[in-house]
């Protein structure tokens, strides 16, 4: 049996025995065959000596069992790494950040504790997947929607804790922002609740996030401070209708006023669906690959020669038909008043709930319907698809301006080309958050030893982005130290404060060592 570094075989065996007595022998896994299923299938370290692997896994079914497992680990200094459903592929999967950790697999904690139709909220355990919740809402005749990522097989809790996002209306797309109330087991086994959950007898845990004093929900986002065992979310009352509509503009120079006006309209609640700004002329042939933005005169000439617009802004609207049609009309008026040669297109209008026929024609995630159909990416003739064994994401926050969009595109495309990074998807500026742009690049990973160069190159891209003030909001474990390093204001005070909190709340440093670059004291020197 592999033991965690610094833990004797005897101590480890004692710890596992205590965990077995808590959760039952069937739910403690130590065989290589079982531990293989806890590897990150898309790891950039696959089969290399530094691959992050578990020494054991334990699957509790209740809060009390989680507490018992954590206490058993804390008493012996055994590192543990909680996962919810383990489906965070591209960002780490079910594998721990610190090799040798015992994975606490929360998949069996799959209870939907409450759905409050009037409050449009729910309270769930970490093993509840988006599919589980969708099925529950359908079976109970609920009029509530959930907001889903794509694919939808992950955990509502796990996705939110890693800052995942979805595709419906603005208040629900940022999944951590849509949470309301967290329960977590701390490093010493104590049970903690945020917000109104701290007030016994409160009926408002899923209504008011803050409670009293400093708001501590953020302690558990991308965190190493606790094992989250319950989480509340706000759900979206099913709207009457959905409209998707686009605005096309013809000149390079339109991009800055376009983004400014689009921002004003979104921030002013004129539209509430997910915005997208792309360039038909620069994505022709392959909508998955936003080509480098050329100089203005070159791009304008391309527009003339191809007849394709320079820019396309797409907005979504959820609400009563009368309202969203009026909102779209107002948007058209505003763009017509400000731009020449602007054209408009209504892409899609559907009444809700979706009919069976509509369900076959829409992107399900836009309607809160979980799906795995995104697995077919690359199959639709989008051009330079690069077959691989998996992928990772590079996801940098860039300025939400036209200038920022163009500069980030040019720098990233130039540097990825220089380094030979084989992108198979490079996004236009899209975001699930209302106040930011994210530049997404998908990078293929392999299981045949090609990943070393990839890792070096991604590290270089992280450094280059940081020089421009662009930082990743989420990344695979292999890059979490580098990304945290790039948030370097005042001699990395962000990481240092996180370390102080870590030392205070988890003095034995057992929970999720190294997650997002925060290591416990005893591992800090060598960074794990």
């Amino acid at each position, binding site marked *: 049996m592999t033991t965690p570094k610094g833990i004797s075989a005897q101590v480890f065996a004692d710890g596992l025995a205590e965990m077995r007595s808590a959760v039952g022998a069937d739910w403690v896994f130590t065989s290589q065959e079982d531990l293989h299923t806890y590897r990150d299938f898309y790891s950039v370290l696959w089969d290399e000596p530094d691959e992050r692997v578990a020494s054991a896994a334990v699957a509790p079914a209740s809060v009390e069992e989680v507490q018992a497992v954590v206490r058993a680990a804390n008493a012996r200094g055994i590192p543990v790494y909680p996962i919810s459903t*383990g489906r965070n*592929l591209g960002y780490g999967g079910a594998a721990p950040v610190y090799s040798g950790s015992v994975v606490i697999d929360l998949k069996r904690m799959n209870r939907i504790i409450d759905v409050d139709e009037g409050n449009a909220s729910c309270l769930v355990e970490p093993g509840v997947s988006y599919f589980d919740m969708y099925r529950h809402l359908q079976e109970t005749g609920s009029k509530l929607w959930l907001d889903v990522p794509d694919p939808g097989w*992950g955990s509502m809790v796990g996705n939110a804790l890693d800052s995942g996002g979805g595709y419906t209306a603005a208040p629900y797309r940022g999944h951590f922002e849509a949470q309301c109330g967290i329960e977590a087991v701390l490093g010493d086994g104590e049970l903690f609740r945020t917000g109104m959950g701290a007030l016994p007898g409160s009926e408002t845990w899923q209504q008011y996030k803050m409670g009293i004093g400093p708001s501590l929900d953020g302690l558990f986002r991308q965190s190493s401070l606790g094992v989250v065992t319950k989480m509340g979310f706000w759900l979206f009352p099913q709207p009457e209708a959905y409209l998707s509509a686009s605005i096309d503009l013809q000149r390079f120079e339109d991009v800055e006023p376009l983004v400014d006006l689009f921002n004003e309209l979104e921030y002013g609640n004129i539209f509430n669906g997910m915005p997208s700004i792309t360039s038909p002329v620069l994505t022709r042939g392959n909508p*998955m690959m936003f080509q480098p933005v050329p100089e203005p005169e070159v791009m304008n000439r391309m527009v003339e020669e191809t007849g394709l617009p320079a820019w396309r802004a797409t907005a979504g609207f959820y609400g009563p038909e009368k309202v969203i049609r009026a909102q779209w009309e107002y948007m058209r008026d505003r763009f017509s008043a400000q731009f020449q040669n602007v054209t408009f297109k209504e892409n899609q209008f559907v009444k809700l709930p979706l009919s069976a026929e509509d369900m076959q024609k829409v992107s*399900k995630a836009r309607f809160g319907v979980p799906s795995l159909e995104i697995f*077919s990416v690359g199959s639709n003739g989008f051009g330079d698809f690069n077959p691989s064994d998996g992928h990772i994401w590079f996801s940098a926050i860039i300025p939400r301006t036209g200038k920022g969009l163009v500069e980030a595109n040019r720098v990233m495309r130039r540097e990825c080309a220089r380094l030979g990074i084989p992108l198979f998807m490079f996004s236009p500026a899209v975001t699930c958050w209302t106040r930011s742009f994210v530049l997404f690049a998908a990078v293929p990973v392999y299981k045949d030893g090609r990943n070393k160069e990839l890792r070096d190159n991604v590290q270089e891209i992280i450094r280059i982005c940081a020089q421009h003030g662009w930082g990743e909001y989420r990344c695979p474990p292999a890059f979490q130290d580098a990304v945290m390093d790039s948030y370097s204001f005042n001699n990395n005070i962000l990481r240092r404060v996180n370390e102080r909190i870590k030392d205070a709340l988890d003095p034995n440093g057992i929970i999720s060592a190294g997650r997002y670059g925060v290591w416990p004291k005893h591992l800090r020197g060598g960074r794990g």
Partner: protein
Amino acid sequence: MSIGRIAWLAVLPVIAGAGLVAVSWAQPAASPRIVPADLPGRQVFERQCAPCHGAGPGDDGAPMLPGTAVLARKYDGSKPGALELRTDLDAEVLRYFVRNGSGGMPMFRKSELTDAQVDAVAAYLAATAAQSDQVPIRK
């Protein structure tokens, strides 16, 4: 451009965990008739496997779901793409793929699918294939 393709543009950037596999849609000559067997494994299959390996069409107009499509391409007519039409997936074979993954599909843990559930799915697939129309096998 279809609505589905427009949707991809904005859908793609926020995905995490999509197994990206190189497939092109293999158009079935005729849709086979799947008659689901009334066995406990049916619910497990429908919940755990069918979102990718079911026989339904995709929401972007593709005629098959991704797992079904990639298998159809892999076997190029020598075996059905839909698992519910396969007669060669006994429990041992199924368990191998479930526990080891394949291509872009990751492995599944026992906390997600117990061995007994995998066995139940195998029994369901065998019974369903036996009572469903079979895709002609190309020799």
